[in-house]
């Protein structure tokens, strides 16, 4: 039930964000400041998600293997590697470390 709610609310809200522009752009404009704040909020949220997901599991530390995988991925992303390479590097690094006994 709760899961249905999450999918439905996220879908409805997202569609509203998408449809507002094409529907109202001839009549109103989003102020520059609002649009800048929105993109800032998204960036802050993305980094917070990345940091908590990389470092924590439940209420504790997630372990070195995952952290190392994310670090390698981050390095590749800084060097503008394509997204699939970033994804594969993260998984492979973490998997290899776990195979070697690092948790």
């Amino acid at each position, binding site marked *: 039930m709760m899961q249905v709610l999450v999918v439905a609310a996220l879908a409805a809200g*997202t569609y509203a964000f998408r*449809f507002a522009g094409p529907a109202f752009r001839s009549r109103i404009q989003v102020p520059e400041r609002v649009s800048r704040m929105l993109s800032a909020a998204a960036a802050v949220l*993305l980094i917070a*998600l990345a940091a908590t997901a990389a470092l924590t599991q439940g209420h504790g530390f997630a372990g070195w293997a995952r952290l190392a995988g994310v670090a390698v991925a981050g390095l590749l992303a800084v060097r503008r590697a394509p997204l699939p390479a970033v994804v*594969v590097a993260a*998984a492979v690094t973490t998997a290899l470390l776990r195979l070697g006994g690092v948790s």
Partner: protein
Amino acid sequence: MRSFWRTLDRGTLRDIALVCLADAVVGASFGAITVSGGLPAWIPVGMSLLVFAGGAQFAAIGVLLAGGSAAAAILAGLVLNTRLLPYGFAAGDVVDGPWWARLIGAHVLTDETVAFALRQPDHRRRRAAFCVCGLLLFVTWNLAVAAGAAAGRLIGNTSAIGLDAVFPAVMLALVLPALADRGLRNAALAGAVVAVAVTPVLPSGLPVLVALAGLVLVEPKGRLKALRRRAEGTAQ
């Protein structure tokens, strides 16, 4: 539709195909992570069809898998998708035609389709790039998520193949270009430090929302500048 294909040059079509391929890898990981985390397969599949926004899907599922509440999951996803609002105002002219075409077109407004549309020199080609990219991306993304969800059930222990590192890696890769702005970088780093610091004590899902407090580091500068500009304006 066929005229759309001929409107676009081969380089653009190739780039669109490459982006679809990249998103397929991400989509497959999304499906696998969600199902192996213990959620039923209809969630990643239904979410991909109805929400169709990778970052928000990962964010909402990430909160759910960490044991967060429905409200926290919805909020995390929606905050990420607020960027679609300015996209729609900036590139909304590519979503036109009869009312049903506009309803469908709005649904495929994403980072990728808007980026491809804005790279085209005229309205006809902008619209063609948007439609072709939107259609291909919708099909490949959903097929990939379904395939990933099916595979996730087979794999079982996705930690062994390192899939738990994929979600933070994707988030990091998505946000890096935006961090070129110094004010934004400070805000994001401060927010991240706070979020990690409060994770041991706050209920799951809340720490990332607390990170939004980091936004105060972006705002004052802009507000000061605006005030100064207004002061200068009145002085003249």
